[in-house]
């Protein structure tokens, strides 16, 4: 970098920033209310587009002056569709509303926008401290989070680059352009950033390796393959704030000397593909990507490559194979991709969250980053916490927070007054941890020691009604299908593991099965090349270690303690509780298995029942007559009364 260029870079950036701020200020001067609606995939799934339409129509009908703007996702899934109304003239601060259906939207327009009444009964909280409405920051779901990667998610319009810039975006890139590449790498090394893609490899070291590789067409790849079947943070980040990721990629390219970069997004994420592609185009128009970025000599072209849905392509060497047009089969390392990667060129592959952490680090310095998190795992972790918690969603916490704090304080604990049983962390590569591990701090090393794994950040919380053997079977079913087939142990070993688990969950378990599971698991770990095979047995091994009694119940008593394994349980109706004449369960049964007994109560025809549990949901709470038992033999036998005289005659003939 020619130092005399520094001023020009800053001038150029200042010009863009001024433009962005002028736009923002112009919008702020406009006193008409602004309605922010979260319309990432998750919001849309919960009906955010209907909500948006309702707002727009109602505003039009009432002839009001108000703006409806779409923003990304704020991560509060339990509250979707989420709406923030900023109406300065009303005298109220910006207000956060949750579960805003189309009907609620119309009500808000009528009462709040027109009448000035913010409908307190529907308010979730105010976005800033004030003395009228309690702030959302009083909720632990908000105040115990620490947002670095997701700071702007849900607050800016992902399809407007100026919005990002007005919130401080691209300043880190401008700063980086005035630094030596070595200084950038040093900064990333000192801050202690570790890869958020699962393995936690020090990012600075990876970049240094690529920077030190001999010249060549170096390439940066942003890994947004996100194959874990229960995680969606990377997608949400790309949909909500794509520029932070692009900015991180540009800084990375600058540091290692690359001029080409690829965002590898799965094609199942069409909205993310669209938003990232649009963001790249906008950044190019403003000269923040492309050639001669901000008047410097630095060029960078970023392309989007759509992954075709193979879990193993999240593995970096598999990912490279698939970009080159082959089956995504991993190869052995070294050489590491940072030395010899895509088309033989040095390739830095980083996860979305790793790259999105870079701009704040460059902007605020390594020392600032080290104040967050722990000594060996600085920074934040983003989890998608789902399953049986009250406040499910995306959570960003400083590393070192315990599982207990995350699950019980931040996410509101277990839903429906049930008891906590286990938390699955790290998806197919991770493990299930029991209650005794709730005080484990969340960081790379502690989770690995406990037998789980940071993984990509999927976290599924399970209550007492879940079956650990079934969860292990579920993950094995997944990894078995996704094994690329290169290594015998991974290809055939996972199949055997699955077969055994399948047997156990259907009541065919035998003595010796558990020992075989353990032995086979160790063999698969040893005999597999890539992380997929090496970690595939983790769900089995951890559940065997912490929930062995459940496996034993399945094998020895043919009993599923969680009553999840359908061959091992059954539904029946408690005749003492069933209300005469009530028909609630009859209509809901998809197989017409519910019949009326001679006493006009209900019974279940076990031959027809498919154990879907609908009748249990349908039975009115005041009767609560449907029961689950395991093993099935415990259910009382209730015969279907014979209806017509013909049939009854036949039946008596037979007897």
């Amino acid at each position, binding site marked *: 970098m020619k130092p005399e260029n520094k001023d020009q870079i800053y001038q150029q950036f200042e010009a863009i920033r001024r433009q962005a701020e002028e736009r923002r200020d112009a919008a702020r001067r406009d006193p008409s209310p602004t309605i922010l609606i979260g319309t990432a*995939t*998750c919001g*849309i*799934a*919960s*009906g955010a587009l*209907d909500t948006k*339409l309702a707002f727009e129509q109602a505003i039009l009908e009432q002839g009001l002056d108000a703006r409806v703007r779409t923003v990304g996702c704020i991560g509060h*899934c*339990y509250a*979707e569709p989420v709406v923030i109304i900023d109406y300065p003239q009303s005298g109220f601060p910006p207000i956060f509303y949750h579960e805003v259906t189309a009907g609620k939207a119309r009500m808000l327009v009528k009462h709040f926008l027109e009448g000035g009444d913010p409908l307190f009964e529907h308010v979730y909280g105010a976005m800033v401290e004030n003395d009228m409405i309690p702030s959302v920051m009083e909720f632990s779901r908000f105040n115990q989070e620490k947002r670095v990667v997701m700071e702007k998610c849900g607050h800016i319009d992902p399809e407007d680059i100026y919005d990002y810039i007005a919130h401080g975006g691209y300043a880190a890139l401008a700063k980086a352009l005035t630094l030596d590449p070595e200084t950038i790498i040093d900064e990333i090394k000192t801050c202690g950033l570790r890869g958020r893609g699962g393995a936690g490899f020090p990012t600075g070291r990876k970049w240094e390796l690529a920077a030190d590789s001999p010249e060549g067409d170096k390439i940066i790849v942003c890994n947004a393959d996100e194959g*874990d*079947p*229960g*995680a*969606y943070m990377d*997608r*949400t980040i790309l949909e909500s704030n794509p520029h932070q990721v692009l900015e991180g990629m540009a800084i990375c390219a600058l540091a290692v000397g690359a001029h080409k970069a690829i965002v590898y997004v799965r*094609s*199942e*994420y069409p909205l993310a593909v669209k938003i990232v592609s649009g963001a790249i185009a906008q950044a190019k128009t403003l000269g923040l990507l492309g050639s001669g970025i901000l008047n410097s000599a630095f060029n960078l072209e970023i392309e989007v*490559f*759509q992954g*075709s*849905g*193979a879990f193993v392509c999240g593995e970096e060497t598999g990912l490279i194979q*698939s*970009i*080159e*047009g*082959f*089956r*995504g089969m991993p190869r052995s390392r070294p050489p590491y991709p940072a030395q010899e990667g895509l088309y033989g060129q040095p390739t830095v592959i980083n996860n979305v969250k790793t790259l999105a952490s870079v701009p704040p680090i460059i902007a605020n310095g390594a020392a600032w980053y080290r104040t967050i998190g722990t000594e060996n795992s600085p920074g934040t972790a983003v989890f*998608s916490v*789902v*399953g*049986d918690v009250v406040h*499910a*969603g995306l959570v960003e916490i400083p590393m070192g927070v315990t599982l207990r704090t995350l699950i019980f304080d931040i996410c509101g604990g277990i839903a429906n007054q049930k008891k906590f049983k286990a938390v*699955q962390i790290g*998806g197919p590569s991770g493990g299930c941890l029991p209650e005794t591990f709730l005080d484990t701090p969340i960081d790379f090393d502690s989770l690995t020691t406990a037998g789980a794994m940071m993984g990509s950040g*999927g976290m*599924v919380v*399970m209550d007492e009604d*879940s079956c650990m053997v079934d*969860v292990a079977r*579920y*993950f094995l079913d*997944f990894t078995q299908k996704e094994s*690329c087939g290169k290594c015998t142990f991974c290809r055939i070993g996972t199949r055997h593991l699955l077969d055994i688990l399948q047997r156990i969950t259907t009541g065919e378990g035998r003595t010796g099965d558990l020992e075989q599971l353990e032995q086979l698991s160790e063999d698969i770990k040893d005999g597999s090349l890539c992380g997929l095979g090496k970690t595939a047995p983790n769900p089995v091994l951890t559940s065997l270690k912490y929930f062995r009694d459940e496996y034993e119940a399945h094998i020895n008593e043919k009993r599923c303690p969680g009553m999840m394994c359908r061959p091992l349980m059954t539904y029946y109706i408690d005749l003492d509780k069933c209300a005469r004449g009530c028909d609630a369960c009859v209509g*809901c049964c*998809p*197989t017409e298995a519910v019949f009326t007994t001679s006493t006009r109560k209900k019974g279940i025809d076990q031959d027809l029942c*498919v*154990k*879907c*549990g*609908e009748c249990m*949901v*349908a039975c009115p709470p005041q009767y609560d007559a449907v029961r689950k038992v395991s093993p099935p033999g415990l259910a009382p036998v209730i015969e279907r009364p014979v209806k017509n005289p013909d049939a009854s005659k036949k039946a008596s003939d037979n007897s």
Partner: protein
Amino acid sequence: MTLNPNLQPLQLFAMDVDPFAKDEIFISGLPDYLKQFDRQRGQLIPILQKVQQELTYLPAEALQAVADYLEIPVAEVYGVATFYNQFRFNPPGKHQIKVCLGTACHVKGGDIILENFERKLGIKEGETTEDREFSIERVACVGCCALAPVVLVGEDVQGHMAPSKVEGLFVRIQVEKEMAQRKKKRHETGE
């Protein structure tokens, strides 16, 4: 269940051209169509994605045309296409039902929902009904786990699915279909 006002029944049902005739026209034009891509191995997956986007599946003739264009054996093309979950080799139904079996949906009974669709339509996951109206697929996490279990009908997300809602979903599709037909008829008779 919410009725999506954005869903345009007419677009779903007014298929004036026989879809298979349309496919054949596209396939016969493939050699020309492919010229927009570089003749490079790295283009293989993007090409397959594009072709599938046009045809909704990858028929044998299309795979052959791609192999010819990139000058690689057709077995290689099959090898790659079958490796990835995205590619399918049979036409899907007009209404694609995708049942989420991601982790969150699994623990909330996604497999029971899948079974209900299978039973209702008399086909298995991965298959299409004989009249090509419906097909069932399983997908992994569509990203709204808080709504688990989740089903996608076309692009429409149905959260908090329950076996009893399956029936209602078909009723809705049927009603929409009849509405579209009536509308079409009115249009034809010039009323």
